[in-house]
């Protein structure tokens, strides 16, 4: 009976030829292919010393932004924590003192701001929820570590470096 798809191939197993039975030519041919790859461009890179170029919409580690005067933008409104589907973000708000006016943008700021990088799924909803443009997932890949506690990133790791003015 003819097959419906006509894709069936009947394989017939012929006995090996003399060349195939000699074994070594095929081995040398294979080794030749392996050896030729030594001179080709490698597909891998030496991460973390070398990093690949990310696409523009890549979402990596979070960073808490500062405004053009170097003040922290975050006001601890809690919308990022509310929108977070993995419940990775926690924060404690505090009131700005008059002498801290250069440090924080609004009268309320995040005294502690923690992201659990093991919980985070890098969905970017916090970025979308933020009304103050304070959080962006524009960092590198979150590095590996040994202890769980070291994956809870506080403000020391998240807040952007203050802008240094060039003279």
């Amino acid at each position, binding site marked *: 009976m003819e097959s419906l798809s006509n894709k069936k191939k009947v394989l017939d197993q012929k006995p090996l030829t003399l060349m195939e039975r000699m074994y070594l030519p095929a081995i040398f041919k294979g080794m030749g292919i392996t050896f030729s790859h030594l001179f080709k461009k490698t597909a891998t890179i030496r991460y973390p010393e070398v990093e690949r170029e990310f696409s523009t919409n890549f979402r990596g580690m979070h960073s808490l932004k500062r405004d053009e005067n170097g003040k922290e933008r975050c*006001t601890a409104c809690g919308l990022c924590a*509310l929108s977070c589907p993995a419940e990775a973000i926690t924060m404690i708000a505090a009131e700005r003192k008059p002498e801290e006016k250069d440090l924080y943008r*609004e009268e309320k700021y995040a005294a502690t701001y923690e992201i659990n990088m093991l919980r985070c799924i890098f969905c970017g909803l916090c970025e979308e929820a933020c009304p*103050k443009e304070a959080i962006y997932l524009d960092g590198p890949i979150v590095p590996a570590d040994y202890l769980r506690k070291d994956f809870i990133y506080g403000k020391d790791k998240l807040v952007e470096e203050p802008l240094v003015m060039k003279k």
Partner: protein
Amino acid sequence: MSDKVKVTIDGITVEVDNGTTILNAARQIGGDIVPPAMCYYSKLEGSGGKCRTCIVKVSKGSEKDPRPMPKLVASCRTTVMDGMEVLNITSPEVLEARAGVVEFLLINHPLDCPVCDQAGECDLQNLSYEHGLQQTRFEFERRTFERIDIGDKIQLHMNRCILCYRCVFVADQITNKRVHGILNRGDHSEISTYIQQVVENDFSGNVIDVCPVGALTDKTFRFKNRVWFTKPVDAHRDCNHDTCNGKVTLWYKGENVLRVTARKDEFGEVEAFICNECRFDKKLTADWVIEHPTHIDDTSVIASNHYETLIPLHVIQPNEALQAANEIELHKKVKY
């Protein structure tokens, strides 16, 4: 005249007492057709008529005089007539006018919701979410005031005030001595104690609850937490005060009571005013008898991650037929 009159609001007919306002008639029906109210407060005499958010269209004046009213009317101040027909959400004219009113209310509002403690339970926030524009057309500077501490427990942010006068009515009617009021006229009006006097009486804390925006806020709760991360629980205690019944809502975060407020009904009005001792001084679980979690509307942001009853998913609900069929498997000690 008979005691009961018939009124039709958005096609729903209801029989109410003679002399009821349109707003209260709509509240008896309930649901979406209730006009929003920023200044009217059923527990405060004389409130209402200031914010104009509750405007409705009267398409038929009454049975005797079926002419429509020429302009949109404030439903909190207009009493019903027999056979009156009112359009609220079914009239595009009303919705457009209400959006205009919201725009006016927001002219001087700082929109600092990320900082404001009222965010999440703010009437103006809900109203502007429903009716407001994305952007302001106001090109001038907003009026600004300094923050004022009214006593050590209440803080006044005059920037956020919409001049609804509710707090003034509270001080007039609930407390025995009013020391704050409204100064100046028009755009310059402000709530003030004039020489920043301390508002001191047992019921002064209620101005926090009646404020529809974040102008009067609890200083003991200031920046403690966002409203939607706290868990509201109904509780009561034996209050020694004559007029306070001690029935409150406690707002928990973990094991701590972050703040105490009066219980609010579906229209955002308190059920009973509570005294300052209950509100500010009793912040331990031991002080209260806890009743049950407060019911929160599903549409509120506070409802996120709050569950009143445990409703297990279908997959973990016990299925007796299935259990009986697999009895041997279920009670087997070793798997293999």
